[in-house]
């Protein structure tokens, strides 16, 4: 018996990445942690990290360090708060986002 594969929207993937960064707290999250938490391939991870940086939703904690760590910006925190509200609302109506 095959299980139905659930596809995530791009917005959900970005939110999952941001959640991983938020959960890491003030120390920030490294790429590996984000990759596992958001269940992404390396290529996708790089692409989406760039997008999050470009939109100023996350920031690099220490760019001199060889292993970059990322922190959530105030804008990112606000976005995630809004996303959680929208997620609850959508799921209440049985709409997957």
């Amino acid at each position, binding site marked *: 018996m095959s299980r139905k594969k659930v596809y995530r*929207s791009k*917005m959900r993937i970005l939110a999952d990445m941001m959640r991983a960064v938020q959960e890491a707290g003030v120390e920030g999250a490294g790429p590996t942690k984000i990759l596992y938490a958001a269940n992404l391939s390396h290529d996708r991870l790089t692409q989406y990290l760039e997008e999050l940086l470009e939109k100023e939703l996350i920031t690099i904690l220490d760019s001199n360090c060889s292993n970059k760590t990322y922190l959530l910006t105030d804008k990112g925190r606000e976005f995630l*708060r*809004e*996303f*959680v*509200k*929208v997620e*609850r*609302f*959508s*799921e*209440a*109506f*049985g*709409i*997957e*986002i």
Partner: protein
Amino acid sequence: MQLGISIIRLDLLFETISGIIALIVTIYASNAYKITGQKKLSDLSTGFMVLSVGMFGRVIGTWYFFVRLGASEDMTPELRTLIAIVTIAYGASRIMAYVVFAVAIRPLKRVEVQDAGALMALAVLVDPTLEMIAIFVLVIVVIQALINYTTNRNRFALYVLVGFILLLLSHLFLAQSVINLGMYLMSQVAQLLGFLSFLVLLYKTG
């Protein structure tokens, strides 16, 4: 007659509040669509918008015919026709909204969009049994909301289920209002409570 007008005034108040709540849900769903790009949220927004426009249309129409013009049993045939048009437009708008809900929140991909379009056209073309159609479509919506609740088991899905059950009850009460006038008011109360359940959902989700 005085009792009838009093009930209509109360009904207009309930309907206005329900319409405002439907408009708030419309705005919320529309914002959610802008954030996520999920088309079903846009459909949901459209459904609530159609509902609110229909409700405001009926409030204005009923207020004009019954309260301002004081329509009574000896009203002219032209006035009767106008009232019938407003009633049919209101009933059709509600059915259209329920069909949009049925399509937007369906848990299984069985109904195609073109089927929904055909159902919406049917709602406009068929007039004597609008309430029956509304009840039929709402039963589908309630079943979908029930499936969603049993899957998610969270209070947010419960608010939606309760909201749609109350809307269904309001139509069932309305269908019996011909034999019992009290059912008409019960119908409006059930509808208002249904929309209040959606309002609680918005409040609880933040």
